[in-house]
């Protein structure tokens, strides 16, 4: 089962993520628990591209491809933003008190927590992030 969706560089595009991921989950039989993980991962990564990718407003920014095979969910996020590997970012210190928390880094931290594998490639002038998660039984 495969599905994909394209997102323009505009925060309003983020509202498409919920119906897109929910449709995919229904078609691919993704359990609710994994759907939430899927929504978070896609939401966080597409938001990063829109906010920091440097793609001019309203232009195509990212493509999200989802696939379930052999009980494993694969999420591929390809973006045309500036070259950037978010996986190299150091994890935020989640033990700091609310007052001392720096802004940022949390989204990628979530993605790492919610998936088992993450890889980055720079291919044909695009950033390609591939993340996988084993679906719960």
């Amino acid at each position: 089962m495969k599905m994909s969706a394209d997102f323009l560089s505009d925060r309003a595009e983020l509202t498409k993520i919920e119906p897109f991921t929910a449709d995919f989950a229904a078609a691919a039989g993704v359990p609710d628990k994994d759907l939430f993980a899927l929504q978070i991962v896609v939401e966080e990564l597409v938001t990063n591209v829109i906010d920091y990718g440097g793609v001019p407003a309203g232009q195509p920014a990212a493509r999200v491809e989802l696939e379930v095979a052999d009980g494993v969910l694969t999420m591929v996020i390809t973006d045309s933003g500036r070259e950037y590997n978010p996986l190299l970012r150091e994890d935020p210190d989640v033990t700091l008190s609310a007052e001392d928390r720096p802004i940022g880094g949390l989204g990628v931290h979530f993605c790492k927590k919610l998936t088992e594998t993450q890889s980055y490639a720079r291919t044909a002038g695009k950033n390609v992030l591939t993340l996988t998660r084993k679906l719960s039984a």
Partner: protein
Amino acid sequence: MKLEVSERDGVRVAALAGRLDGFGAKEAEKLVAGAEFDSPLVLDCTELTYLSSAGVRFLLTVQKATSAGGAAFALSALQPFCASVLEMSGLSGMIPVYASPAEAVRALQGGSGAAEGERHETAAGGFVFHTVGSTAGTIDILGDIANVIECAITPELVAGKPFFETEYSLGLGALGGAPEDYLPVMGEAVMLAGTMVWLPTDGNDTPDYMIPRKASTSVVLQTGFNASIRGGFNEFVEFTAAPGCPASVREIYRALFDLAKLRRTDYRGVLGLAMRAEICGAFGAGITKSPLLVNRPANGKMITDGSNYDAWFESDKTPRHQGSTALICGAGEDLTADLSAIDQDRLRRMFYLNPANKGAQHEVLHNHAVFFGNAPPPGGTRDMDVEMRRVVDQGEFLDMRHLLDQTTVASALIAVSYVQEVREDTRED
């Protein structure tokens, strides 16, 4: 994103509806722009269906603003999905969360009713209960206590467990890089709000003590068995025994069990506790050899069996540490309660009958304690993390032991989790 602000008994309640994602957070920021944050604020999340890292940042912004304005801030009715995102962000212990806006308002009001708490006199002594949170408590289990008492730990059964500043857990484990370093010295371990103490079974009877500064994955407890209290605490309880008549740890648990039956509709027969106790007489026990399969007793019996006990455990016959302050992490199972809501197999992986706990019939307890001398008096906070860190920072470290039920206590501050579920600990680094 919708925001509706109302006022209840002097507390502002802002009901946030919609998805607090990257888009919703921007909208929410616009909605609160220009607002004053100088009075108590409850953000009601009954209709908040989604939370992302951008949403968490929004919550942080509000938390910082109220904190700068000297006002209290809490969330209410956080839905399970949003609660798990908050937990992942490490903020779940830092922003108080209440089950309903009404409960949050009561807590933030700080009026006479809330400050005084709910008072109960029992055979053990007097208890005063304060509600501090209403997330559903869980105990997460890693490994199996049976492998400890059957002396059946093999290298494959040992798992690396990262620990966190808000963690309360107890178990058997060791620190060390390579299996040949940690396997032979595994012993009683406890984690108390960021302080890890363990008693290596290296024959020196000297606890090893550390405070990890970061939740990074660099410090990992190698453990054959661990039970963690998760989800924050529901109540903060002040306990005072009658003058000259200290109560045993068992009596305190018994009273908490009995009161829970009367007071709490969410009582499932299992409590998780974090306690600061002023000790009259401590009875401790400690395993003295690492319970590895290769060390299994020649007679093949459990290490708690009468024929093996003395060779495997050192347990106090006379009280120790009189006048000290103990920081305790523990859990108890009430055998008189209806335990049917709790997974029995997982429960059995946490509790065992220690023959040194004489007289236990109606409850099974498992507690680990760290003892301090010259601890500062209680600081008036109802945040157990804060209270424990004060004792750790200012007290003089004495000892760490598995705590036997007959240990006596003059007074205590107790954070109670009414455990709803005993789960598999699946959290890895």
